[in-house]
């Protein structure tokens, strides 16, 4: 009141009409609220844009254009001796199978009476993916009886033609492209009109290994999924027992002294160490020093174990802390030792929290890329690793590293593959997080 008179302000004329100063303050209030709301909206919009671009870019990887043609497996070319001896059949290179595919396609074009202006022989042979001849060869080697017959073959087409049906390649861009031509695309259209060429669901994206630079149409995430799975296995086997044991000690037994303090500070610092530093550690300690093989899932698993340990320890300690002391007191009161009270009573009650933390730690490990680049997971791997434990020491890839690998290739078709691999990765992460949420919902207990 005295304030108002001191500053010589007019007394408020009406309670019903806001004075200028109040209006100003209220406007500031509204602006401030709008900033806050805006910040939330911006972050949600970013999330939507991020997911939308990845999804739209990557769904194409799950569909692939195939050509269905009758292929005559000419015995004169494939088995000169005529005795179907597997050793002799193996000597026939994929080149020969490529020629057979080309002849079959030319035959099919002639049969259907497709005529296209300035269609070169190269256009016709290039329509078929280079991977297709290798696939046909494998099929024949698996079943030599096919030789001499005419079989229906489902053949991968060239990545550019595939891109044409996914909107990545147009007639205009094809004219400028050395790897395809408008005539080739017209041929593909004509074949499609005859029902021989179709874009179908592509299981092989999930099952087949990576393919070389020129064959984006054949590249898949099979080895990457397997490699990631192996690494998660290693992390699960190592990080969970070690992490839980460490948390039990720190939470239930550790005396408050300098050593425990050092451990605690260490764990919280390790949680914030950049992941690439763990990669350097893995390279120096596990590969250079311990002599483990490069690009093996065991090394990746060990590095990811060290990385996820702090996460698991922090989550487990929170879960142990949430178990009320009365449980421990009751156990001790009926004569259990401290060890028994922890292992028989506290630990089972803390299990849901530990599981949730573990799954979240695993999800983090699954998406980690940088440390894996340093331990050689970028290598091109064409052969599936065998079953564990031997497979853990054989070269493999990992899902996020596969994504990185594909972004480094020249052909834009690999970008679609990379987005597709990310969809696979996100689906795995989603499942893990849903599992964590479900576990928490089902077993959560409040005392």
């Amino acid at each position, binding site marked *: 009141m005295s304030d108002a008179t001191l500053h010589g302000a007019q007394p408020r004329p009406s309670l019903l009409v806001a004075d200028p100063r109040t209006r100003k*303050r*209220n406007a500031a*209030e509204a602006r*401030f*609220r709008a900033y*806050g709301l*805006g*910040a*939330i909206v911006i*972050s*949600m919009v970013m*999330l939507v844009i*991020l997911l939308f671009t990845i999804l739209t870019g990557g769904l194409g990887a799950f569909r692939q254009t195939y050509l269905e043609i009758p292929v005559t497996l000419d015995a004169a070319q494939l088995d000169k001796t005529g005795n179907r001896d597997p050793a002799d059949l193996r000597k026939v290179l994929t080149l020969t199978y490529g020629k057979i595919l080309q002849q079959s396609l030319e035959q099919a074009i002639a049969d259907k009476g497709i005529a296209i202006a300035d269609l070169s022989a190269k256009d016709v042979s290039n329509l078929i993916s280079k991977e297709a001849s290798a696939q046909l060869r494998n099929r024949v080697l698996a079943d030599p009886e096919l030789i001499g017959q005419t079989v229906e073959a489902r053949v991968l087409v060239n990545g550019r033609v595939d891109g044409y049906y996914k909107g990545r390649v147009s007639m205009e861009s094809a004219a400028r492209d050395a790897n395809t031509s408008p005539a080739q695309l017209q041929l593909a259209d004509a074949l499609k009109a005859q029902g021989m060429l179709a874009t179908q669901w592509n299981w092989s994206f999930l099952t087949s290994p990576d393919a070389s630079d020129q064959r984006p149409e054949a590249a898949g995430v099979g080895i990457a999924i397997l490699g990631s799975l192996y690494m998660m296995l290693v992390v699960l086997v190592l990080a969970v*027992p*070690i*992490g839980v*044991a*460490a*948390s039990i*000690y720190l939470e239930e037994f*550790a005396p408050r002294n300098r050593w425990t303090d*050092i*451990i605690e500070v*260490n764990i919280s*610092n*390790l949680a*914030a*160490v*950049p*992941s*690439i*530093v763990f*990669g*350097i*550690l893995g*390279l*120096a*300690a*596990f590969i*250079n*020093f*311990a002599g483990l093989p490069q690009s093996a899932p065991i090394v990746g698993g060990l590095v990811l174990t060290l990385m996820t*340990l702090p996460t698991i320890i922090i989550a487990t300690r929170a879960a142990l802390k949430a178990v009320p002391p009365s449980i421990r007191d009751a156990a001790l009161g009926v004569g259990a*030792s401290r*060890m028994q009270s922890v292992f028989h009573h506290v630990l089972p009650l803390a299990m849901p929290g530990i599981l949730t933390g573990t799954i979240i730690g695993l*999800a983090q490990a699954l*998406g980690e*890329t940088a440390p894996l*680049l*340093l331990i050689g997971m*970028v290598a091109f791997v064409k052969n599936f690793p065998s079953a564990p*434990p*031997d497979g853990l020491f054989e070269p493999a890839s990992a899902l996020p590293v596969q994504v*990185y690998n594909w*972004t480094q290739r020249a052909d834009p078709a690999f970008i679609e593959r*990379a*987005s597709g691999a990310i969809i696979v*990765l996100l689906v795995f*992460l989603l499942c893990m*997080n849903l599992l964590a949420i479900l576990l928490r919902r089902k077993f959560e207990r409040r005392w």
Partner: protein
Amino acid sequence: MPVSWTLLIVLVLAGAGYLVTRARVVALAGGDTRRLHSRPSYHGWNAALLTALPALFLIAIWRFLLPAANATPVAVLALILAAAGLGVALSRSAPGFRARNAVESMVKGLLILCSSIAILTTAGIVFSMLFETGHFFQQYPWQDFFFGTTWSPRFGGGSQLGILPLLWGTIYISLIALAVSVPIGLFAAIYMSEYASAKLRSVAKPAIEVLAGIPTIVYGLFALITVGPMLRDYFAQPLGLGNSGASVMTAGLVMGIMLIPFVSSLSDDIINAVPQSLRDGALGLGSTQSETIRKVVLPAALPGIVGAILLAASRAIGETMIVVLGAGAAARMDMNPFEAMTTITVKIVSQLTGDNDFAAPETLVAFALGLTLFVITLGLNIVALYVVRKYREQYE
């Protein structure tokens, strides 16, 4: 593989030890388990642990520390150890033997060992990098590394390996990332803790946390295929600032998005920790809600928020995949944010992927870079944790 065979035999021995000792102790007690000091299974566990632990340690040390050692003698030694452990356990098994105490102290030892792995990891990180960094500085003068302004590694000699251009790129990108994430994250946290209805919070909080769960490679791809080309086509080229898709701006913006949930969840905790009485006092004096926040809550929470920003900065400096895919590979000291620059982490990746020659300074420099990165982020983390902890104590 001799390792897996030895492992298998040791485990079988341990299992046998469990069964035999348990049966023996029960037999010694004349079938009356009440005459035993410990339950029979503790006697069994005692034997199993004594058999397995020494042998397993030997195998672990052999496999990871001395991979070149001859396999057969070590395997034989491990088996002898296992058999000796079993023998000791069997000879000690008697009804009065305090097996439970023995087992519990062994388990406790294991627990202590597991909790020391964190220390071992840190030691491993520091030593592995110090060791190789030492090698690097024997071949390349440290003054040139820390104060050199040119980065041009040439395999075959004559490289210039100055860290300053990389440090500049790292700092520039991190600053842009913080300029994006701090206001957005902070405002989101303020709105969520002070204004939002429970319903909005239950939607918005998990949605923002989803951003935190997305792997960084996804952000990297987003930078590479969406943000980079967009910035180039709509900003850099029309403004004549360059025509590179990979740029400081691309990496900074995307990294900023990645850091939003990080800043917002930390600030959320800190704002919630400000005592309600401070708010009530300000509101009671007639300030509006925003005045309360700006003049009372935020100043009170400031140290904590500074800590959160420091933690976010350490994240930004150590982030790898976004900059690998979004920032480019050219080491350059430039003010133009639409120019491609590079960071410490990018160069660690590029120097250490592919065929490495661990005698060449061009490879070893990655360890020096890694150590620098480790020291910077560790320093930021320690300061941040100190600030946050000190602040928490203030209101407890």
